[in-house]
């Protein structure tokens, strides 16, 4: 096992109940960094996280988490905090009961820190879980994770449905968490703007397969956005267009950077944002837009 990795998935495959499958999923995160797991709804982000946490059995490959092979010892969960897009606590528990209930399970539970964090997040100990807003619920789950001194925080779509202020607060909380070099974060989202500020590494997932993984800069360098009139894109030869979007004013698509050199002067080539990369990759498996022949589109097979 590799000690300086927060986690690693190597050739992971699994089939879940609804027929969806992960195939040959491989990516890793060094300790001390934030990785964004980006994909459209249904791309496989949650299934990947469930496999990583040992909640979902795998059929091939191997998973390493904090130096242990998954499924590892139960005590490994002392070091992992999980924040989902919903609370997984009894709705009628007060926040003081949450602490009383969870504290016995964690060796390093810090009751003082829990109360400090609730105060910092503006959460009342007497409030009930079911009465918290989505943003407040997410903060509660973060408070729980930080109170048992987790080394790895796993967020699964924590910002979906949050307002910009709450999303900004979350970014600040993650920044504080990362002040300790032994701490790492996996952050699954389809809102890529969250990663622009805090993401060190990015993994793109689509249809249960990893499209690309690497540092954020590598990912941004790997693609270019090409814009032009519909005819101009249609006439491109030897270039694979990823997720063509067409409108009355023109068309745009993603291309691999190494293929951008083949483009003529009639189209505009720009460095994409993470969001543009995610959008075009998400579009790549959908029905082709009118006007561009099917053969001009790439497939992520």
């Amino acid at each position, binding site marked *: 096992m590799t000690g300086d990795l927060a986690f690693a998935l190597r050739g992971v495959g699994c089939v879940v109940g609804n027929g969806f499958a992960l195939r040959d999923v491989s990516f890793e995160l060094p300790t001390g960094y934030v990785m964004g797991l980006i994909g459209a709804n249904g791309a496989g982000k949650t299934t990947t996280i469930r496999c990583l946490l040992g909640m979902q059995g795998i059929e091939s490959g191997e998973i390493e988490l904090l130096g242990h092979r998954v499924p590892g010892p139960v*005590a490994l*969960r002392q070091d992992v905090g*999980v924040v989902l897009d919903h609370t997984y606590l*009894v709705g009628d528990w007060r926040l003081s009961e949450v602490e009383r209930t969870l504290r016995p*399970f964690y060796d390093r539970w810090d009751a003082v820190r829990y109360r400090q964090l609730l105060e910092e997040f503006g959460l009342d100990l007497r409030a009930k879980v079911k009465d918290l807003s989505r943003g407040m619920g997410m903060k509660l789950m973060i408070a729980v994770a930080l109170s048992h001194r987790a080394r790895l925080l796993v967020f699964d779509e924590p910002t979906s449905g949050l307002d910009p202020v709450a999303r900004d607060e979350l970014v600040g909380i993650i920044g504080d968490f990362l002040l300790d070099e032994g701490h790492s974060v996996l952050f699954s989202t389809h809102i890529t703007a969250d990663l622009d500020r805090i993401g060190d590494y990015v993994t793109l997932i689509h249809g249960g397969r990893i499209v690309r993984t690497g540092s954020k800069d590598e990912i941004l360098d790997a693609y270019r956005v090409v814009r032009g009139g519909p005819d101009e894109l249609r006439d491109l030869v030897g270039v694979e267009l990823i997720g063509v979007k067409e409108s009355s004013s023109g068309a745009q698509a993603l291309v691999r950077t190494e293929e951008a050199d083949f483009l003529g002067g009639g189209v505009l080539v720009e460095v994409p944002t993470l969001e543009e990369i995610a959008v075009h990759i998400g579009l790549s498996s959908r029905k082709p837009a009118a006007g561009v022949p099917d053969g001009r589109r790439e497939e992520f097979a």
Partner: protein
Amino acid sequence: MTAVARMTVLVMRTVAPYRTQGLVVFGVIVLIDSRSLVGLIPALALLLAPLVAAQPFMVADKADLQTLYAVLPLSRRTVLLGHYAWALLSFLAIVITGTALAALLAQAQDMPFGGRSLATLLTLSWALFAVNISIQLPLLIRFGYTRISVLATTVPLALVMLAVIRVHLDLESIQDWLPLFWVAGAAALATSAALASCASNQRQRS
């Protein structure tokens, strides 16, 4: 505190906010059976104890506690044993309370209570409870409360009642079999826990 004890406390805290519902059912059963002391303790064991044992699953489905169990440093075996321990402890509490209440009612109605007939009632209650729980918990663990709540409560009850009717059990006829009833109940629960362990593994894979 052992891991199973911690899990049992977690289950207890899970249902604690909803204790009023259990108290209402308890009150209704006591009201109905208050003139038939023979039926009170078995009725509590057959109707209330399984409801209390199943209630954590109902709350778990609603609050996604399966995720909590997977995130907490708990093995699946511990989660399972915690549910069984909760079922047993709640049964004990219900039967002790029911027995005390029945003794008070007997005194108030100047009826004989205790001795061998009480031992028989308690044994019958244990057997009814054990059979019911042995069927119910593996189903709840495998499928969750939402998918099989009707199946989990109705079918075991119907099976037990049918058996009682067909065999024409009465208190006299089972007195010689009391030790066997206790052993059979315990064996049923142990077998059930083993089955539930398999069911739990299957649920994780699906």
